[in-house]
């Protein structure tokens, strides 16, 4: 089954637009794709007429164009007939936005969709979903464009059972500078499920990191998913909801009571090299780090640079608490590092790791320290705690330090407080593919995940 017309359609038919209700999901989807995306967009309603000056076609068959993707937003009971029409009309794929299927107790209605699609090998996403948002390509989310927070185009693909969580994640991604290749809300996942999307995204050249928000797999479904993910060339991250609803049945078995549902889930994921994000902070941090360093696998020895002793000490605590090491440098290394610093901090800086350049450090001291760290074989990655308010540094430092990473290839992870005033410093890193965390905890998580990522 070819899913590419779902993700990169040239033409879209939005079926079920309303002549009277501008907030109808179909109207929102029609209008945003017509005005903002490079797809030929057509509105469909059995009654015909005009919408915002554009012709409304009475059926998908009446459109004088071949349709790659049908977005279906009619009432549930009409969906099977519309789907059949799409299949007969050589439409290539569909997203069924409409609710009122298995989630409302109408399993048979949903099964009738699957039967139609399976018979024709016709891919559809949903029902009861938002569908697919791919920056610059297509957007079937029925949220008005001005209300959505849209991350930049990037290489993280997110698949979610929950539309609400997905939209919320996009807000976090946008804030943290994580770019996405596509966001897919699969709703009731009647036909296209996680496994097919994993296969598609593994082969998708725009995607580098694959994320799943999972509430649960159906019976035995997780097995094929983890086995496929283990073969995936790209990092796969899973965020699981419902960790606490442990099964309480089968009290007569020790195994059953010890191996609760979530414990099994987490163990099986780890066994297959899938990265589990336990919460949203982990998820966003992992995505940003792996998006910048998808092929980098490091050991857990961290070198820390800051302009404040307190920041260094806090970072050490978080590193060590998370199982990372912060090895103290030898006297020789310390001496050589000290010699590279400017004269006014040479005697006051601490250079043992964590390195504290002090508030008197200037821009070139940070460059010199990172350059030196790149040559120290005892550390595998560099954690840079940037204090943008120090008088000696400018907004150019991010871009300059990114060049140091490019030259040496030792992963650099920066912490910069995320406020508007420091935006240019942050972008200097991020636009040059160096991840920037908005907290020390997040920076350490970014380091951590590079250790857990499998070799590609």
């Amino acid at each position: 089954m070819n899913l590419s017309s779902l993700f990169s359609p040239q033409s879209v038919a939005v079926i079920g637009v309303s002549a009277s209700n501008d907030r109808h999901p179909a109207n929102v989807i029609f209008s945003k794709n017509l005005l903002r995306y490079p797809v030929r967009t057509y509105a469909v309603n059995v009654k015909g007429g005009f919408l915002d000056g554009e012709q409304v076609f009475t059926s998908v068959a009446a459109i004088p164009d071949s349709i790659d993707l049908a977005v279906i937003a009619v009432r549930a009971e009409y969906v099977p007939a519309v789907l059949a029409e799409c299949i007969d009309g050589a439409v290539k794929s569909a997203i069924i936005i409409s609710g009122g299927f298995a989630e409302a107790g109408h399993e048979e209605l949903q099964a009738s969709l699957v039967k139609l699609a399976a018979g024709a090998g016709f891919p559809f996403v949903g029902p009861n979903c938002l569908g697919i948002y791919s920056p610059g390509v297509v957007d079937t989310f029925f949220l008005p464009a001005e209300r959505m927070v849209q991350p930049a185009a990037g290489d993280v693909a997110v698949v979610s059972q929950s539309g609400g969580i997905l939209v919320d994640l996009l807000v976090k991604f946008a804030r943290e500078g994580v770019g996405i290749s596509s966001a897919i809300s699969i709703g009731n996942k009647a036909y296209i499920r996680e496994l097919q999307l994993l296969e598609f995204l593994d082969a998708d050249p725009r995607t580098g990191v694959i994320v799943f928000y999972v509430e649960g797999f159906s019976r035995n479904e997780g097995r094929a998913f983890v086995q496929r993910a283990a073969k995936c060339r790209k990092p796969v991250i899973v965020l699981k909801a419902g960790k606490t609803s442990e099964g309480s049945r089968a009290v007569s078995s020790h195994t059953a009571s010890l191996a609760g549902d979530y414990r099994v889930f987490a163990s099986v994921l780890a066994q297959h090299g899938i990265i589990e994000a336990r919460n949203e902070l982990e998820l966003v941090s992992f995505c940003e780090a792996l998006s910048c360093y998808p092929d980098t696998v490091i050991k857990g020895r961290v070198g820390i640079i800051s302009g404040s002793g307190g920041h260094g000490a806090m970072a050490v605590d978080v590193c060590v608490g998370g199982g990372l090491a912060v090895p103290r440098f030898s006297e020789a290394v310390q001496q050589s590092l000290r010699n590279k610093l400017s004269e006014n901090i040479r005697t006051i800086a601490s250079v043992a790791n964590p390195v504290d350049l002090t508030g008197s450090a200037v821009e070139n001291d940070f460059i010199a320290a990172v350059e030196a760290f790149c040559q120290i074989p005892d550390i595998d990655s560099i954690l840079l705690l940037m204090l943008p308010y120090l008088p000696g540094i400018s907004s150019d430092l991010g871009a300059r330090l990114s060049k140091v990473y490019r030259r040496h290839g030792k992963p650099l992870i920066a912490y910069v407080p995320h406020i508007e005033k420091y935006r240019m410093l942050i972008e200097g890193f991020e636009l040059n593919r160096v991840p920037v965390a908005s907290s020390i905890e997040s920076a350490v998580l970014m380091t951590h995940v590079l250790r857990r990522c499998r070799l590609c």
Partner: protein
Amino acid sequence: MLTNEMIAMLQAGRKNGWLMEPEAKRLFAAAGLPVPRFAWAGDQQESLQCAAGIGYPLVAKVVSPAVVHKSEVGGVAVGIADNRQLREFYEKVSGLAGFAGLLLEEMVAGTELIVGAKIDYQFGPVMLLGIGGTSVEIYGDVSIRMPPLTSEDVYSMLQELKGGQLLSGYRGKEAISKEKLVRVLVAFAGLAQDMAPYIESIDLNPLLCSGKDCIIADARIMLGEVFVKTGGADPSFAG
């Protein structure tokens, strides 16, 4: 692959919904997994004869489809030394509900581990290795995997156990034979996959491991609902 003999043993368990210890041990023996020398005696006379065959001291356990947790009803005696003690134990437990004889077996020593398998709703058969004994559910020190298992998987499971050091000769205690443990676990993982359509869970608790051997000292197989009701393998887990 399960043999017809093993499937017949599982079928015989359907009336109770589970395989009692001697039934489970017969099945494991048929699958080539290590169990102690044991005998299932129906009455007192037969118990004394079997005991003579195994030799004292020995372990005696009540067999009853109504008793899932034997030690909780005083249904286990370790170190029975002679005929008199065996007769006394027989008198004590023969009145228990559903009494179906005694299981008599040779004494086995070693560190207590728990090995188990269960059918997980999302992943099918999964298995577990833990530091066993009565405190297993308190510490919850277990490692879980989805079969099939390789020997590398078993070593990584041991690494994951917080108490793994206890198995490597901690403070002068004999280290367990990791090779034997690997052999048992890899074989058990394969068996758990083959048995998945028939079972809900399997407990080997304890599996007793020493420097020489790993032996299934107690075992219980809970059968799956579909199998108990229909007698047919659950197609969701077949193949």
